[in-house]
């Protein structure tokens, strides 16, 4: 593979509270041999895809991101599941719906046609790099770690618009963790919602839903939960102490971004992976497994 430069959209969260997600991803990319080139111009994606079909104004923010990406190449990668979801769906609307395309372009004063190919970082690893090659680059295999790959919902659904993998029985995430040497566990709530934006106004629902995700993972034997989305990460970590409090049988486990797990396996200096920014502590597990 010749040196690959992929235009990259970090999104707001990765620029602020999920900085470790961003830095670990960039670092891992450079070890594997590609570069994530941040867009020179970007704004917030809007953080939700508007569900009312006539809400075109809600599509202008992501459309601006897309049109500025178009100026830097024909692909765009991103990490946050929400950004990925919003950008990919907006792009499809612009590509397939001429009427809306015209309206949106009128608002943003651009001529964007929906031709950028939006790839999640996981897709870059799977389709552009190849998991075999990732496996070959592993220096510090996550041997013996039973990991729960928590997809959440935004990464997979709706299937017709996203299509990264089979929406109801995906394997892309497990395949990556397997390449890193970990043992993915099958657990019930791996593609269920964490409670998402309800974190703002209905904590009870979030604790309940995130709690189910974590208990089903731990029941299935997970020693580590890996996420692909800052909102999932936030909700799980925030809920975990409460879940442990109300369920005495529950043992808390560390929750990390998949890029942190990736960096770890690729042999990155543990200090640089930003684990201290997570609220759960992965170090005891790493020590126990003889990894750190």
């Amino acid at each position, binding site marked *: 593979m010749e040196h690959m430069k992929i235009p990259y959209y970090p999104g707001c969260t990765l620029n602020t509270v999920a900085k470790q997600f961003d830095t670990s991803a960039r670092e891992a990319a450079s070890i594997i041999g590609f570069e994530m080139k941040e867009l020179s111009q970007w704004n917030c994606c809007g953080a939700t895809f508007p569900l009312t079909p006539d809400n075109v104004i809600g599509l202008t923010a992501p459309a601006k991101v897309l049109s500025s990406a178009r100026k830097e190449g024909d692909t765009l990668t991103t990490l946050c599941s929400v950004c990925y979801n919003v950008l990919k769906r907006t792009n499809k609307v612009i590509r397939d719906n001429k009427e809306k395309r015209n309206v949106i372009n009128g608002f943003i004063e651009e001529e964007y046609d929906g031709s950028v190919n939006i790839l999640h970082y996981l897709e870059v690893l799977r389709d552009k790099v190849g998991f075999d090659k990732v496996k070959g680059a592993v220096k510090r295999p996550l041997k013996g770690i039973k990991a729960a790959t928590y997809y959440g919902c935004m990464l997979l659904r709706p299937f017709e618009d996203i299509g990264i993998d089979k929406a109801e029985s*995906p394997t892309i995430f497990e395949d990556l963790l397997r390449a890193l040497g970990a043992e993915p566990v099958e657990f019930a709530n791996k593609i*269920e919602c964490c409670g998402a934006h309800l974190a703002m106004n209905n904590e009870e629902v979030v604790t309940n839903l995130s709690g189910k995700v974590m208990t089903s993972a731990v*029941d299935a034997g997970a020693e580590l939960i890996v996420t692909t989305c800052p909102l999932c990460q936030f909700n799980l970590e925030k809920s975990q102490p409460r879940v442990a409090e109300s369920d005495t049988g529950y043992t808390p486990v560390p929750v990390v971004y998949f890029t942190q797990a990736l960096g770890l396996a690729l042999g990155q200096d543990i200090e640089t992976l930003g684990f201290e920014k997570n609220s759960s502590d992965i170090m005891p597990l790493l020590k126990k497994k003889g990894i750190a």
Partner: protein
Amino acid sequence: MPRIGVFVCQCGNNIAATVDTKKVAEEMGKLPGVVYTCDYKFMCSSPGQEMLRQAIKENKLDGIIVSACSPHMHEKTFRKAAEGAGLNPYQCEITNIREQCSWVHHDKTKAAGTVKSIDLTRMTIQRLKKNQPLKKIKIPVKKKAMVIGGGIAGIQAALDIAEGGREVILVEKEPSIGGNMARLSETFPTMDCSQCILTPKMVEAELNENITLYTYSEVEKVDGYIGNFTVTVRRKSKYVDEERCTGCGECIEKCPFKVDSQFELGLNKRKVIYTPFPQSVPNVPVIDAPNCTKIQKDKCGACAIVCGPKCIDFKMEDKLVTEEVGAIVVATGYQNMPNERFGEYGYGRIKDVISGMQFERLASSSGPTGGEIRRPSDGKIPQSVVFIQCVGSRDEKKGVSYCSKICCMYTAKHTKLYSHKVHGGQSYVFYMDIRSGGKRYEEFVRGAIEHEGAMYLRGRVSRVYEKNGKIMVQGADTLSGNQVEIEADMVVLATAVVSRDGADTLAQRLGIGYDKYKFYNEYHPKLKPVETVTAGIYLAGTCMGPMDIPESVAQGSAAASKVLALFSADEMAREPITSVVNRTTCNACWDCVTACPYTAIEREAIKDRQGNVVRWVAKVNDGVCQGCGVCVAACRSKSIDLKGYTDEQVFAAINAF
């Protein structure tokens, strides 16, 4: 000068209310060539027809027009009446002044309707002047039939045709006839054992002298037309000589290799030399060549060593045989949609999530568990079973939009079988609506719910997952408005009934139509339910869409009766409305060959006396041509004409307007 008669029908008030029929008749009488006119209350009545016959004879008419209803209604009636008076029936033409005139005009002064009727009739008169007397086409009929597919529908059709005294070839692609019904345990609504009612029919089909069984065979090519089909059948090599095999089963016993059994849907193994199930007909094993070490690597050969009559031949090859038949019944059945498509239900991931058909095998006394309900993972008897209905059916997004029709019934049956076999076990059914239309069907389902303790929950399942050795089923109970979670030991999916893989290829070989789901199309959904657009090819059973055994059997018999009716005469008369090629002007571009939807046009070589080909022309096969006229429109050199609708006739009518 022609001698034409014009008969204008009042059709009670249907025509007369808005058309002055008397005036129409009078006006027509003024036209050159018209020597007789009249109007009458009901031309189609017996006195009306008699009047028509009299008028033809008395006035020596050589052509007649009946201005009445659509030719679809009474063209046949009047042509027959004309024939009775000695006229060529194709010298009788109909003007439609009812459906296309009186019924669409409301003007009670009759002005518009009358003028239009006059115009229409005048056009027909000019057209009639260009008519040529035509003769019905006589086609010899080969009184032997072929039935493709040996499920219950095909077996029934074959038996009925044989019973009617005609020969039948029954072509089945598997080593045994029986189809899906052979897999079933008990059958709704009467709960008789499927094998017990099917096996006698299978044996009857084998023993009937009029039936020839071609098992392990497939249709490769179909030529010809109604009464005269030539079918090429590939008889796949069984590696066992059918004539000499005694069915002793020694070879199966001794074969050291096992693979998954397709018949048991992976719930059990079978040998590499095998019969699909114990009651197979014919009771002759076949060797599964890709898995046989003798055939692949020349190692083993145990079966041949123990075979008493020495009928195993590892060098046996496929044979192509050609059969001449007069009619074909297609009864190739259905399959179930692959369950793997529904990740949320865990099929393929969770061992004890099985399909409805697999449940039939577990409940069947000849199945892998001898009829005990034991789950595949550990052989334990499940104490609670969840049945999920509409897996893929009525699901436009991930499955098919239609209802598979049989699943409500067989799921109710499954809960009954389960409660009979596992006392104290609890069954749950997630359903969308219960569709149990049919004689004693609703009572059957009510029985399962009210007397046999099945718990019916109206709602969909969102997820199935494993937890502590149990299968957790999460779903909605929309009647109580709650989310429910059920701990089950086994889950059974009622997967959609879909057409067979390759159904489209076979349809193309036969020249019959199919819908977007690749189910075969009947000619008319109500009035011609077992016919196809291709004359001489009939349909029966689930190759047309989901249906149960009673319906499949009824259709098998219906198709057979169509075949027997066709075979009741030595020759078949057909309407002579077919196209003809002008061989002098045809320039062999073959656009007509491409355009013809019935493959009725052939390439004919014109030879000189020495037998050298001088040129090629198109030739229409009268037996196949349906008179649609597509070739006429496609022909660039204007070399094709449709008899009864020649360009000359049509232009004459237009000019008269």
